[in-house]
């Protein structure tokens, strides 16, 4: 199957120094059955228009940098294939809900700040220091967080979440899923530090369970589940605060 066919790829273009607003530009791209959308974009950059700007690195669905909208669907362009769209044309746009930096690249500054805010690392408790010994976990304890640890920060879930689009302050799916990933880890003792993020209006309560984050996630992280389980945690925290002695949480 090395037969070459032609597909029209329509790209959203935007140059911050010369363009008032984005516009579409179409390219006619020859492709073979094994070519991904990313390879289509690379063909454009190499042969048709060197100014087209987009991100990629691994080309194997693990680095999370090639996310974009293909026909309004947030996807990793390296694991989306041109053959599945031919003979129709495809429209490639930067990930929805994010500011466009240039062409298909978006500005992730906002997400990176949110990622930092959830303390996405193990916070061991002071009196439980194993020194240089390994910290063993049972297979069951690993299962508690393994799924949530698969996130590659591709941001497809943010592009699928209308709540994030409507309110940029919402902490959003991936950051909250990662928050849950560390809270669910038996080696972690940092829950209290993450509680403010969970409890905030922009935390888990910013979610209305549209559920699309989990639908589009290429790594099946299921952020919707992570977020909504923490609504119960947040509610418990709210009521327990009245019962516990003052000044302690």
């Amino acid at each position, binding site marked *: 199957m090395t037969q070459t066919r032609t597909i029209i790829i329509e790209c959203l273009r935007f140059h911050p120094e010369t363009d008032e607003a984005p516009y579409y530009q179409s390219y006619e791209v020859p492709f073979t059955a094994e070519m991904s959308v990313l390879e289509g974009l690379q063909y454009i950059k190499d042969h048709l228009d060197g100014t087209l700007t987009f991100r990629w690195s691994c080309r194997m669905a693990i680095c999370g940098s090639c996310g974009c909208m293909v026909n309004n669907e947030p996807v990793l362009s390296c694991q989306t294939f041109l053959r599945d769209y031919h003979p129709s044309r495809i429209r490639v746009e930067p990930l929805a809900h994010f500011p466009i930096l240039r062409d298909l690249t978006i500005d992730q500054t906002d997400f990176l700040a949110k990622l930092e805010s959830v303390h996405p690392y193990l916070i061991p408790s002071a009196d439980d220091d194993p020194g240089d010994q390994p910290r063993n976990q049972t297979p069951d304890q690993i299962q508690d967080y393994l799924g949530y640890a698969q996130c590659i920060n591709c941001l497809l879930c943010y592009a699928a979440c209308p709540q994030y689009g409507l309110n940029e302050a919402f902490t959003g799916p991936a950051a909250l899923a990662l928050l849950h990933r560390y809270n669910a880890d038996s080696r972690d003792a940092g829950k209290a530090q993450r509680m403010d993020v969970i409890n905030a209006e922009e935390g888990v309560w910013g979610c209305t369970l549209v559920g699309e984050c989990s639908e589009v996630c290429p790594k099946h992280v299921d952020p919707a589940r992570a977020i*909504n389980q923490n609504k119960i945690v947040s509610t418990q925290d709210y009521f327990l605060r009245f019962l516990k002695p003052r000044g302690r949480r």
Partner: protein
Amino acid sequence: MNPPRTYTRGMQRWWLRRPSYQFYLLREGTSVVIALYGVFLLMGMAALAVGPGAFEAWRAVLFSPLSWLLHLVVLAAFTFHAWTWFKVLPLTVPPFKTRRFPRGFSDATLNRMALWAWGVVSLVILVAALRGLQ
């Protein structure tokens, strides 16, 4: 260094962008119907407090042909709402681990349990209400 100029697209008519968004709005929209029906029932209670005349008037509205029609609409909205609500329910419960099910119940099991509970409770209420009417 100044931050680079960026372009932010708006959320104009965002619900048209994915069919699932419309489904979501429909799901949430049916809760308005449920709230309105709650208000209607409250009005019945208020009428009862006011006096027999007011209550009879409310009952007349309740058994009017238009009300029967609206009740069918409300029933459809309730069923849809409950159905979708129980569908997402498993996402909201932390894994409930037991000795036989060390990883907790599957989503499908939780969903089925909830639907059964809903069915049984509805049936009990229906029987009780029918007896009350006699």
